[in-house]
């Protein structure tokens, strides 16, 4: 007998309609969809290099484990896509949205190398089909003491890791962002030098990378990831400060020793390798005890591991988190 499971309601469908209409510049996107549909019928491939796919609806999303979703109010699409830290596209919060047009995401490949039995280079379209896409509503806590709630679309990083079969020597993964000043204009050095060294790199310990909360994200709000949010594929590690969730990934390197991480290289005493959200360990220059949730007036208390302690505290058992900040 075939029992059809009712499709769960996606958060995107609970979002107030005005918000939706507002943000989509409805007519523009409707005509784009019509154009794409027409082209598909005519057998024309519109996804030529240089095209931005942001805004395209992602189909067949399944719901992630409900225990992982926050029930807090989801921030608006506008807030999520206009208030970004993405230094490759500019250092001001509004810059990445302005410069999003430069970051073309096709063609795009991700190389997986190092301590794995099956190193490979994956095409972005292959990544999007690597595992069923899920929606996960996570809090994101920035190291600058603000936070935001985002309905990500992606799949657990563990799905990719299992495919490449890490060797016994694989203790960490280093992630690498694209380095291409043409597509990432702020990577061009200015007379004051560069804010960070390029390419941006980040790292996770293997157990952190395998944790079911850790996502490879390819979308948000049910749509393809906008460039300013790290298109076409990014990491999401919700219990760590936002900068750990590296954007626009082109390489995963499985390594034995703790790898370099960009902010950690720049200011080791301010940004640790672990960088777990911790209200008791202040940034040397500012307090991490409270945060401002985007859209709220009063500061709220920051939670240990950004509120994901139940899921992840066991990873750090016996570790002095003041020392390994």
């Amino acid at each position, binding site marked *: 007998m075939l029992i059809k499971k009712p499709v769960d309601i996606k958060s995107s469908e609970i979002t107030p309609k005005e918000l939706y209409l507002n943000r989509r510049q409805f007519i523009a996107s409707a005509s784009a969809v019509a154009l794409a549909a027409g082209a598909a019928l005519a057998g024309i491939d519109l996804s030529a290099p240089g095209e931005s796919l942001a805004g395209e609806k992602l189909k067949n999303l399944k719901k992630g484990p409900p225990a992982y979703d926050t029930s807090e109010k989801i*921030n608006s699409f*506008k*807030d999520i896509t*206009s*208030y970004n830290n993405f*230094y490759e596209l500019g*250092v001001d*919060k*509004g810059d990445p949205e302005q410069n999003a047009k430069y970051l073309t995401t096709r063609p795009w490949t991700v190389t997986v190398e190092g301590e794995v039995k099956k190193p490979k280079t994956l095409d972005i379209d292959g990544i999007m089909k690597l595992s069923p896409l899920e929606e996960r509503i996570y809090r994101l806590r920035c*190291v*600058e003491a*603000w936070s*935001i709630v985002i309905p990500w679309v992606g799949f657990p990083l563990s799905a990719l890791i299992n495919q490449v079969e890490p060797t016994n020597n694989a203790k960490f993964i280093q992630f690498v962002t694209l380095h291409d000043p043409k597509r990432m204009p702020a990577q061009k050095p*200015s007379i*004051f030098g560069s*804010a*960070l060294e390029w390419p941006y790199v980040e790292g996770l310990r293997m157990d952190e990378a395998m944790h079911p909360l850790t996502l490879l994200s390819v979308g948000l709000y049910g749509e393809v990831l906008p460039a300013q949010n790290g298109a076409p594929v990014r990491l999401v590690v919700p219990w760590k400060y936002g900068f750990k969730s590296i954007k626009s990934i082109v390489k995963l390197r499985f390594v034995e020793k703790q790898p370099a991480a960009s*902010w950690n290289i*720049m*200011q080791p005493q301010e940004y640790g390798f672990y960088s777990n959200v911790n209200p008791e360990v202040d940034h040397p*220059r*500012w*307090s991490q005890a409270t945060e*401002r949730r*985007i*859209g709220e*007036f*009063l*500061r709220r208390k920051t939670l240990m591991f950004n509120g994901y302690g139940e899921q992840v505290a066991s990873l750090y058992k016996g570790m002095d988190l003041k020392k390994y900040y």
Partner: protein
Amino acid sequence: MSNWLKPSVFLVCLVPVSQLAYRAYNADLGANPIDTITRFTGSWALIFLLSSLAVTPLRRITGWNELIKFRRMLGLYAFFYALLHFSTFVGLDHFFDLNRIAKDILKRPYVTAGFTAFMMMIPLALTSTARMIRRLGKRWQQLHRLVYLAAVAGVIHFYWLVKADISRPVQYGIVLTLLLGYRLLVKWSSFFATRLTLKALTAPSR
């Protein structure tokens, strides 16, 4: 100087705050309005502070002496924007949580620097009236040298708070260095000029 110039400059100095109010009214301050207001008012406080410090060098270089008439106005506008900036910190950012504010000032070097700069500007604003200038006489000038320290503290405040991109605070720093450097040069050159003249005067005549 024509009669309209001073009122015009007065109005132009109100453009930034009007722009901010307009954006606030239209809910156009971005996703994090408190942060936007804080940065906006802080930047303009520094810009006006540096502008007031630019008056004397510009006057000397261009010979346009009437520029001096704008110095007080620019200084008071610097104080006005700094007051908005400080009020945002106290009222919006920390919502009058005095305990936390005090902790921030004592514990966070960048807040300490900014707070120091603001504190130093208060006596300058209070003694900016014609009557106070007369009353304090020579001491007025000594007191108002505090503005150099306030500007240095203000730029340091900005430099210490940025995460990685130091380009903007460095730009302010360069301008401030030029403005203070000019004063030092003038002082030294007049010092050496005096010494040379003295030497010439005291040299034994043949």
